[in-house]
């Protein structure tokens, strides 16, 4: 086994793997390799990003950045020569991936099957792209087996020889998934063939991974398997309990497929773990979860909207030297994977990365190094593309057809220009969705205005723009826009939700509650609506009703940070700090980037007399951008007996904030009142 010196990380990606599927299999001993990994390391939920689309998410995992920085905004994109559309390419990525950073740092990476990795980048190591793994065509032509798909290109032939073809599978390979395979008429039912295609692709990745892991030196081995997601889109509807619309016969034939899929992944994991030693850090992640129980969308809805089957939390497992054992990792996000890998390898993370290293997973306290950015530094050794390389339109069309079959993209029509325009529009919408709720939300406004200029009837764009304006404090603009809409449009449930958001921003919770009730009448109740109703009751100080709303929300969706934070606030009001802390911990355990929840955790801890823990929670809220005056006030009070210097610094922030408020009020009083200001509700005065 050839090896280079230094630390090593095996990063395994299981697209769409979900603890809800895994935990029962772990409990019954059916995933022993994963059990071993968890026992010797840490496990946790991994928060995903919006939109929940795999090419964007796996690129965020590989870069530590959101789509507005990495540039991958969907499954497809226009071909470089304008002749049509093709799968999204590595040449469209606008920042370095972890393998580029390692390359310029003299470290080696072997990367297999990663989304948006084609054409292969000339990195220090070996790269086999997602497009290289495409299966062969019926005419015998080897699918994506072009030299562009492998770096170094001379490895392409050896890699192609490791391809596991669907034809090479035998009945014994499929029987564990479909025990009654012999009873199925394969001429009429193509589902076993679809299973075989997905199984062959997973086995191909495994063959290439097990070959490379032994034969090529590496510091980072990144292996991506798409099978859990792809099996899910075809077979999760048959997983117990039987869903409405699934016949008893289909249920009997296919109910074992998903369990089999996870067990097969465990077997592959077992094999991969045989090739690494105790000095290697193993990280297993999924980009999102997948509904597997009673919350699965109805069969036809799931087929029409594959993204609707995805859950907002994936999985993470972490094991290796210096990593805590048999503990939980809380508040992890897919954005954290690259910063964590860099920290583990002793490299600085870029301050322009959106994630954080999982320092709480380390046995010894660590302070990660930072640089301003990895972009524009050492590019000549980073294994970046020199320029755009051409993509064969026929190959691209075949790859797009596979995405169509999965339901991820609409079938392209005859009109090439129209297809290109639709793809650009769809990717722009995805970019907008990735910006919402982030500190970069203002960047979504011009993009939305562009889409509305193309089609003023686009309801989603109008509502999203209104929401953005509200978040940016442009309340008058938002109200003008919403009230200019047709009366029928304004009655829609989604529009009533935006009106409610506007009423919240105008500090009018009673009006918000009216809009939320109208939204419930129009579209029925759902967890997000319950959370908003709870929020209105909190602001109206109707604590019991708030508690009931959040409890309903949790009953519908247990992994629900907003509802947990809402309940924490209710418990604080009821004078039950222990319960409040418990709920807050659950909320931040699900999603770390939730500053209000950290703040409420601090309040609960403070009331329990745990000053040091409260400081930590408040500092965390402050560190992720939550800066109300009350937070500085509480920190000043808590620091005063133990660290007067820090208390003083928070006092100064408070004093400056007061001075700014007085200055703003003074300027405002000298300006003539506008028509808008004269109509502002009384409750908003002084905001």
């Amino acid at each position, binding site marked *: 086994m050839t090896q280079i010196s230094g630390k090593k990380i095996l990063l395994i990606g299981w697209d769409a793997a979900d603890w809800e599927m895994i935990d029962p299999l772990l409990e019954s001993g059916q995933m022993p390799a994963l059990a071993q990994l968890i026992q010797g390391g840490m496990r946790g939920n991994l928060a995903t990003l919006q939109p929940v689309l795999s090419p964007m998410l796996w690129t965020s995992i590989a870069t530590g950045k959101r789509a507005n920085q990495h540039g991958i905004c969907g499954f497809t994109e226009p071909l470089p020569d304008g002749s049509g559309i093709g799968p999204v390419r590595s040449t469209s990525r606008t920042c370095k991936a972890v393998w580029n950073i390692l390359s310029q740092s003299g470290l080696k990476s072997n990367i297999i099957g990663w989304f948006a990795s084609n054409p292969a980048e000339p990195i220090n190591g*070996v790269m086999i792209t997602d497009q290289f793994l495409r299966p062969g065509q019926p005419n015998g032509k080897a699918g994506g087996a072009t030299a562009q798909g492998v770096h170094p290109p001379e490895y392409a032939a050896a890699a192609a020889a490791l391809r596991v073809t669907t034809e090479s599978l035998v009945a014994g*390979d499929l029987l564990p998934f479909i*025990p009654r395979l012999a009873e199925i008429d394969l001429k009429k039912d193509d589902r076993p063939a679809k299973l075989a295609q997905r199984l062959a692709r997973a086995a191909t990745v495994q063959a290439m991974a097990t*070959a490379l892991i032994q034969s090529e030196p590496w510091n980072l081995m990144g292996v991506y398997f798409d099978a859990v997601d792809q099996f899910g889109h075809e077979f999760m509807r048959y997983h117990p309990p039987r869903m409405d619309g699934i016949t008893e016969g289909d249920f009997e034939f296919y109910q074992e497929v998903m369990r089999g899929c996870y067990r*097969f992944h465990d*077997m592959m994991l077992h094999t991969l773990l045989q090739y690494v030693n105790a000095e290697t850090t193993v990280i297993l992640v999924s980009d999102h979860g997948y509904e597997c129980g009673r919350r699965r969308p109805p069969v036809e809805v799931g087929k029409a909207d594959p993204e609707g089957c995805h859950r907002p939390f994936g999985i993470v497992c972490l094991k290796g030297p210096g990593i805590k054992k048999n503990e939980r990792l809380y508040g992890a996000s897919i954005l954290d994977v690259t910063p964590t890998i860099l920290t583990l390898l002793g490299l600085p993370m870029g301050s322009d990365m959106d994630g954080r290293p999982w320092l709480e997973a380390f046995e010894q306290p660590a302070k990660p190094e930072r640089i301003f950015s990895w972009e524009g530094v050492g590019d000549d050794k980073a294994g970046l593309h020199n320029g755009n390389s051409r993509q064969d339109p026929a190959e691209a069309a075949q790859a797009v057809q596979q995405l169509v079959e999965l339901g991820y993209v609409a079938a392209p029509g005859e009109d090439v220009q129209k297809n290109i325009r639709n793809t650009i529009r769809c990717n722009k919408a995805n970019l907008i969705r990735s910006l919402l709720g982030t500190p970069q939300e203002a960047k979504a406004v011009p993009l939305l205005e562009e889409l509305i200029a193309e089609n003023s009837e686009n309801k989603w764009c109008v509502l999203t723009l209104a929401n953005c304006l509200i978040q940016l404090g442009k309340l008058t603009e938002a109200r003008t826009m919403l009230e200019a809409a047709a009366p029928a449009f304004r009655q829609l449930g989604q529009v009533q939700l935006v009106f409610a958001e506007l009423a919240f921003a105008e500090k009018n919770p009673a009006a918000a509650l009216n809009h939320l009730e109208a939204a419930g009448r129009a579209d029925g109740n759902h967890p997000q609506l319950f959370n908003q109703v709870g929020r209105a009751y909190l602001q109206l100080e109707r604590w019991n009703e708030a508690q009931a709303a959040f409890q309903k929300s949790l009953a519908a969706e247990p992994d629900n940070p907003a509802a947990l934070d809402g309940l924490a606030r209710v418990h604080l009001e009821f004078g039950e700090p222990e319960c409040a802390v418990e709920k807050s911990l659950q909320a931040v355990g699900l999603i770390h980037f939730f500053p209000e929840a950290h703040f409420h955790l601090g309040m609960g801890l403070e009331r329990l007399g745990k000053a040091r823990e409260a400081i930590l929670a408040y500092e965390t809220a402050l560190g992720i951008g939550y800066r109300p005056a009350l937070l500085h006030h509480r920190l000043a009070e808590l620091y005063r007996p133990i660290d007067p210097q820090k208390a003083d610094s928070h006092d100064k922030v408070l004093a400056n904030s007061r001075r700014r408020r007085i200055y703003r009020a003074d300027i405002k009083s000298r300006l003539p009142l506008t028509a808008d200001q004269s109509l502002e509700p009384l409750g908003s005065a002084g905001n």
Partner: protein
Amino acid sequence: MKAEISNEREAVKNVPVMAATEQVLFARTPKGITVGVVSDAEPSSLTLLAAGVAGMAERRARRERTRNKDASL
């Protein structure tokens, strides 16, 4: 990758070791016959698939054996 062929040779030696720890038992047919079972003597074809490059050689060898057996019949 360069070591693929030698890996496959190694594989034949390594596979039984991996299989012994697998003990895969996936499902039962309606007649109660277990499938996908790994016996100590011979790993299932799916186990070989999960074994990656190491299992490829054994899968090929099995296909050959089956073909030769069919031919001799």
